[in-house]
């Protein structure tokens, strides 16, 4: 930073002029195209900022002052509407404008840097890199910039900005009663957070209850799949089993059916007069239908079991892949010691499988915390509970959040919960990821 200022202060008037007219320094030193690109970026930015961004940004502090008005129109005999400010668009496009401004400032600094750099080069009598040289460096030394630019642009536009927007929503009162464009919403500070944890007993109870079940669910859903998937893979890969490929295919067909179809079918079959109950009664195993979807414990067991139906094929395939690739050296060293098949498995195959699949397991665990499909399509969070606020006993945080957004239009509360999920999940997984062997030893095989 210091060096940057020093270089800049030493620069000639072209360098300093680049402050106002971007690209001036480049144009002077012969990098005409690059300079013009800087200039074009500047012009575009100001057009964007004053033509579009400012009319939203200027209202950011209040999120709009003028509500939609009704005015009686005698000629037409109607209450004409005078459009007011749209709080949501103000917030959304303010976020966009700020982001574009930040990027522009970065570009501006880069422009100054390159201007002073070129000045230094000229002063030292060195050659100024041509456009061709710049371009080829983008394919080599600075290849990461070329490769990352497209994915990062879409990432910022479709993931980062929307997330910032949703986080900001948590500090407003955007709900069913404050729906733009008919109404305005505004900043309410930490109101939603205190509401969940201090203000509203039902909401606190709901949050804590659902959080608890979410964790229990994630643990069960992950490890049942892990253990049974492993066993299944071991069975299929046993030397005595014929037609290995056919067996694997059988188990893979169910996962090719879209989950919203298979789970809808299963949830219908689980209803009191549904196929499963009918079949069980015909077999004479039960007399009255089992309340699969209305009993708390039973419905929780049901979602875990059905999740095994969905998840085991995936883990089976993973483990099949691992089993087929256990390095021979490991066995060779073990058979010298005269180990039997069971000991061989326990001391070589198993530890190796656990080691290799560790990263995938963490991903699955995180995926299960946010496992929307299985819960929403199977039980829709039910059985609904009178203890909870708009939630049922199999609801995960993520399905509760979805219901609050889509059914209740309670965006502010949903965003607040979203932030909490986000914090819990990201802290857990960052710690674990960065401690697993796979990450630490990423350079091991290279």
């Amino acid at each position, binding site marked *: 930073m210091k060096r940057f200022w020093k270089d800049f202060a030493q620069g000639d008037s072209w360098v300093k002029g680049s402050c106002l007219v971007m690209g001036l320094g480049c144009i002077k030193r012969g990098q005409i195209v690059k300079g013009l690109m800087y200039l074009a970026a500047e012009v575009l930015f100001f057009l964007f900022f004053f033509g579009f961004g400012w009319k939203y940004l200027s209202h950011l502090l209040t999120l709009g002052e003028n509500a*939609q*008005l*009704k*005015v009686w*129109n005698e000629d*037409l*005999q*109607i*209450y*004409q*509407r*005078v459009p007011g400010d749209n709080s949501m668009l103000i917030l959304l496009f303010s976020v966009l404008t700020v982001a574009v401004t930040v990027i522009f400032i970065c570009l501006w600094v880069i422009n100054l840097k390159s201007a002073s750099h070129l000045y230094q080069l000229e002063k030292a009598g060195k050659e100024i890199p041509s456009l061709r040289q710049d371009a080829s460096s983008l394919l080599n030394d600075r290849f990461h910039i070329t490769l990352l630019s497209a994915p990062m642009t879409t990432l910022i536009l479709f993931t980062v900005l929307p997330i910032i927007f949703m986080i900001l929503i948590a500090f407003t009162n955007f709900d*069913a*009663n404050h*729906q*733009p*464009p*008919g*109404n305005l919403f505004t900043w309410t500070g930490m109101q939603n957070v205190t509401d969940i944890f201090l203000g509203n007993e*039902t909401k606190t109870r709901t949050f804590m209850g659902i959080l608890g079940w979410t964790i229990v669910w994630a643990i069960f859903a992950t490890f049942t799949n892990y253990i049974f998937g492993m066993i299944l893979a071991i069975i299929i890969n046993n030397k005595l089993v014929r037609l290995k490929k056919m067996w694997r295919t059988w188990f893979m067909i169910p996962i090719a059916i879209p989950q919203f179809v298979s789970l809808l079918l299963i949830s*219908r079959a689980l*209803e*009191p*007069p549904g196929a499963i109950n009918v079949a069980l009664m015909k077999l004479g195993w039960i007399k009255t239908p089992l*309340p699969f979807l*209305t*009993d708390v414990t039973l419905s929780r067991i049901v979602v875990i079991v059905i999740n095994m139906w969905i998840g085991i094929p995936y883990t089976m395939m993973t483990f099949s892949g691992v089993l087929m690739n256990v390095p021979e050296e490991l066995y060779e060293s073990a058979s010298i010691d005269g180990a039997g098949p069971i000991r061989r498995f326990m001391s070589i195959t198993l530890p190796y499988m656990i080691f290799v699949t560790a990263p995938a397991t963490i991903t699955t665990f995180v995926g299960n915390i946010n496992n929307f499909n299985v819960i929403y399509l199977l039980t829709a969070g*039910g*059985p*609904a*509970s*009178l*203890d909870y*606020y*708009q*939630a*049922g006993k199999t609801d995960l945080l993520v399905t509760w959040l979805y219901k609050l957004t*889509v*059914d*209740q*239009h309670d965006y502010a509360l949903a965003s607040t919960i979203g932030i909490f999920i986000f914090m819990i999940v990201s802290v857990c997984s960052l710690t674990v990821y960065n401690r697993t062997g796979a990450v630490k030893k990423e350079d091991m095989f290279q």
Partner: protein
Amino acid sequence: MKKLFAVLLAVILCCTAFAAFADDITLKVWDGQDDQELLKELCEAYAAAHPENNYTFQYGVVGTADASARYLEDPAAAADVFVYPDDQLIRLAMADALYEVTRNHDEIVAANSQGSVNAATYKGTLLGYPMTADNGYFLFYDKSVLTEEDVKTLDGILAAAEKAGKQFNFDVANGWYLASFFLGNGCTITLDEDGKQVCDFNNEKGLEAAKAVAALCAHPAFLPGDQNILTGTIGDTVCAGVCGTWVADAIKERLGDNYAAAKLPTFTVNGEQVQMGSFGGCKILGVNTQSAYPIEAMNLAEFLTSEESQLRRFEVRGYGPSNINAAKSEAIASDPALSALAAQSDYAVTQLIIGDFWTPATAFGNALIADPTVDIQPLLDQWVAQTIGQ
């Protein structure tokens, strides 16, 4: 500030003035998937009747159940004219989504049944054009199993069903149907003058009603489950069930000549028979406040809900009209489902619910299905507390 306001107003007036002279008018209209063809037919008829403007219609597939949700996602992109059920009226009104019916107000009120006008009114203002009056519920039954006498009382239905080895389906886990016991026994759920939710389902009357629900749940001939269960089983293992006109075709197909419908039965409270209440339902055409052509949109809405359009809608889709003259037509009076609905309408109330009523209602219903002997009062208290937002 005032000046800015005046300028804005002037601009808008100019715009509408121009719009009035303009030839090309594009209107977007929403209706459900299977109503699209009729909608197109009627809109084209409207365009033909108004050659002074050049109409282009855009048709969006948004069923009534999703209307308010779709509308609120992006009001500016929503239809100019859209169908919504009366239970979404308050949510839409709070979002200032609907134009007041001010043009031809008196004629519209006079032409439509009182119940449908009430259903389209919020805080004394008519916020839409009543289109159908058939969105309520009533009893479907199998004539070969139950007599007209049996279906008058719940006990009669259950007794006859049990005797025939059949079942009676009622969706206890849905607050909309569940409320009929409470409404019938004199409980209310409504809004007070400040627009806040009031509900007294947990008083003595409510407890009596809930006990009747528990008794129903404990009966061997009772089958819980939603409309899919009813349409899948009626005529087979089930001989009667409560639902609305939208399943009438399916049930007619299954029962054939044994198809019959009636108002809801009475149920027993302390040895006396009490008539079950219900929520009367209407479908209403609303005009979007974000519309660029409000006058044309209103005219179209009026046309789509006129007597002729409502009759045509009954002919093609079997929807019960809200228009008084249309409802008098012979074909409609002889339709079993619509006449059952008309009989029930004397006991139906307008649905005025903004609180969190539905999810706890489901929880309450499920609790009774799971265990009819459960201690009811605390459950009722929790339900009401959530509904009125305590």
